[in-house]
């Protein structure tokens, strides 16, 4: 009898608690992401289990991450922010935080601790590059090459991109100074530790552009992540840079004769922000979703669908096999030790300063 009363009470408390929480959270949310395979992986790994746990909640996707900063600014000026959780790259998150368009988050309070007991800030470590940013995946910009166009000696170094004699033909690079200038300097003999110091100087910038000049006529410049995979599949280019997940799907899912070149891959981060100025109900829902979607298991689950590394250290041991292909995902992660021998991380603070200036130089150089 006593037991059943206790059970009854706890059930009432649980129901009351549920009702309380539900009553203070909005029941629908708009998530913003990049579309394609990446958004599909988020839908399967985060949203479907979240909705299964919270029946009655509806989630709508908006595929606007590529212009999230501009749209959020416009929404903010119009006083009508319609997004609840937005997926952006780290550089955009920093910018949004700077502009006051994203909400600052206390990571330890808002996010779940790691499965191994570490606090959220320890678990994410250095990847929390902004107070507004909740890291989700580590991806990299790296090279893929056509097996049938590189002869008997496939490229092993990023500097082979600059070797027109050994690997004649077109290459593709992003129409953007970021990563290209770093690679140019590395291949011009600059030590990775000095790259940004050199790039700060006028001479260093000239040096990087001079190196790029040596292959300028053999480069197709891409602006969308799908360009390089398409160019590789069509045999338009010998090698080209793009996001590692795009190359994974080209190689493993579409079975194209393409291989990865992991040398000096550039790491970058992608994650969530919550727009500033949401109503308390929507903010509560967004935070609730964020806590669920960035816990250890959920981040590890996402790697079943796409080859991007989970941002939590505690998720890495849980990464399993691809949901459809059944292959081990760990060797395809940019963070896998075999792949990560030579890497560098996008220097956010540095690029925040130099982006405007170097972009103008880069565009003028392209137009010459």
């Amino acid at each position, binding site marked *: 009898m006593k037991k059943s009363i206790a059970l009854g009470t706890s059930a009432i408390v649980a129901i009351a608690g549920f009702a309380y929480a539900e009553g203070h959270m909005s029941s629908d949310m708009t998530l913003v992401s990049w579309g394609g395979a990446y958004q599909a992986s988020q839908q399967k790994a985060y949203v479907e289990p979240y909705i299964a746990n919270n029946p009655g909640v509806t989630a709508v996707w908006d595929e606007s991450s590529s212009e999230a900063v*501009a749209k959020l600014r416009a929404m903010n000026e119009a006083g009508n922010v319609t997004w609840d959780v937005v997926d952006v790259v780290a550089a955009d998150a920093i910018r949004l935080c*700077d*502009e006051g368009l994203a909400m600052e988050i206390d990571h330890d309070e808002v996010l779940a601790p790691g499965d191994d007991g570490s606090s959220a800030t320890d678990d994410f470590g250095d990847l929390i590059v902004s107070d507004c940013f909740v890291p989700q995946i580590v991806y990299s910009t790296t090279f893929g090459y056509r097996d049938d166009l590189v002869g008997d000696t496939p490229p092993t170094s990023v500097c082979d991109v600059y070797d027109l004699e050994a690997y004649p033909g*077109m290459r593709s690079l992003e129409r953007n100074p970021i990563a290209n200038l770093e690679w140019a300097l590395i291949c011009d003999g600059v030590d990775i530790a000095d790259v940004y110091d050199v790039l700060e100087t006028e001479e260093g910038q000239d040096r990087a552009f001079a190196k790029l000049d040596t292959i300028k006529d053999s480069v*197709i410049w891409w*602006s969308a992540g799908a360009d390089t995979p398409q160019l590789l599949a069509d045999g*338009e280019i010998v090698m080209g840079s793009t996001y590692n997940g795009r190359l994974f799907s080209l190689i493993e899912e579409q079975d194209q004769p393409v291989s990865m070149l992991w040398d000096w891959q550039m790491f970058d981060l992608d994650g969530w922000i919550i727009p500033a100025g949401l109503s308390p109900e929507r903010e509560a829902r967004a935070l609730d979703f964020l806590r669920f979607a960035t816990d250890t298991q959920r981040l590890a689950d996402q790697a079943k669908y796409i080859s991007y590394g989970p941002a939590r250290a505690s998720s890495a041991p849980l990464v399993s096999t691809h949901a459809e292909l059944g292959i081990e995902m760990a060797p395809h992660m940019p963070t896998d030790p075999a792949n990560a021998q030579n890497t560098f991380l996008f220097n956010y603070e540095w690029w925040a*300063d130099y982006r405007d200036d170097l972009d103008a130089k880069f565009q003028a150089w392209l*137009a010459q």
Partner: protein
Amino acid sequence: MTDANGTIVAADGRPLKASLNRALRREKLRAFLLILPLLAFVIVSFIAPIFDMLFRSVQDDITSRTLPQTVIALDDWDYEGAEIPSEAVYEALYYDMFFAAEAKKHTALGSRLNYETTGMSSLFRQTGRSLDEMGGNVIEAMEDASEALDDSAFWASIFLTQDSSAGSNAAAARAWATSIADMELRLPVGTYLSDGAAEALPNAARQYAAFAMFTHIVDEDVPAEEDPWESVWLALAEDLTASDLRYDGIGAEQLAAVQAAVAAPMADFTYTAAFLDQDEDWADPEVIGTIKTFSSPYTAGYFLTAVDLELTPAGAQAVDENVQIYITLFWRTLWMSMTITFSCILLGYPIAWLMANLPDRKANLIMILVLLPFWTSLLVRTSAWKVLLQQQGVINDTLVWIGLVGDGSRLALINNATGTIIAMTHILLPFMILPLYSVMKGIPPSYLRAAKSLGATDWTAFWRVYFPQSVPGIGAGCILVFILSIGYYITPEIVGGTKGVFISNRIAFHISSSLNWGLAAALGTILLVVVLALYWAYDRIVGIDNVKLGG
């Protein structure tokens, strides 16, 4: 009817002229009321947003809004003199920046100024992080001197009062804080800034009032329960070291103890040194000069940047050759749009002629062929051109197969200006064909027959009789195609590579990527003016009345 004066009057006895005018006015009013909803809709949803966007090309009040006191203090500073600004500038900068950092407005200003001078973004962000450490010695000495200062309520009791006769609403502090926070701030209802404190401790009272307003409105907390910011402490130390201090209000005793303790650390403290310790760039005339140059609410800077000049503290000057791009892009946009328009005439004229002169059944078939691509998604059509034009694409493969070009020397038809011209000519062709067709349809075939029967050759009959009558169609088609192509963006982005992109691709970049909306607005304004100028020129030369969109 006429009245005694001989003027014609209507049936009701009013002068006919006035009566007619009245009826006409009523008609006009009725007509106006009919279009009023549409007019209002167009103004609200189209014209107003465009002007709002264009206005951003000159609007630049972020500096004067975020650093109001600094901008005033900088009035006396001269860039040419190349001297480090006075202590008053750094003092104003400290208080402006401190409040801006609390309101999270300093980083937006840093991003704005970084468009002009590289490094401003991180300078503002990093300085914003370390502002609360500035004057640490002074604050420590104050804490040691009196424990009362650790009590938030003690501060409130000095500066705030519930008595409206002994206080004011702190209008100056309110204006200052509202400007930086970019939102309406005020003290809690029934709370006033104490007159006694405001008179004896002016700096601290102003800072405390700003702190209290921000705590009340933004944080939604009670000021008396929150610890004041470091800026309030420093302002109090400043007031207490002033030579003629006469304060006898609440807490005078404790403040006297603090006053004795801060004299020594304050003697060693300067705002200048605090900023230079944080970052030596704060003494750089370029940095201070940039703040001063962009401190007025309106700027010509964006327009100068849009024509490859730059506004520097030393005045407007040309940018380095290796960053000049906009003039190149404007020229490229113009000549490529003209090439595309001309290609459209060459290809569209014969088709329109066929459509206008073939029997209806065949003409309708051609019409469907013209319209079918028109109804297909723009992206699909552009991507299809990619498949056709690339080096391993259909056209190159065919040419190699025929033997016209060698396998090693395939033509570069895409990712350059050629690709843009081919793809855009195809995409814009219907805009040329349709007006041409509708004009040609209205030219009676009997004119050509008459010309021929009078002895004209086929060519003369076409050139002297038919062609002049079809010119209004060419004019309409040209205006449509040219104006559409000058603002085109998606097709050049996909097939244009680096040599085939337009100015609109840079506008898109500044809108969505660099967030430099002022520059994007300036580029857009220039583009608009160029189009209007060309339209005007067209009107002067050809006459806009000669443009026909339909028969």
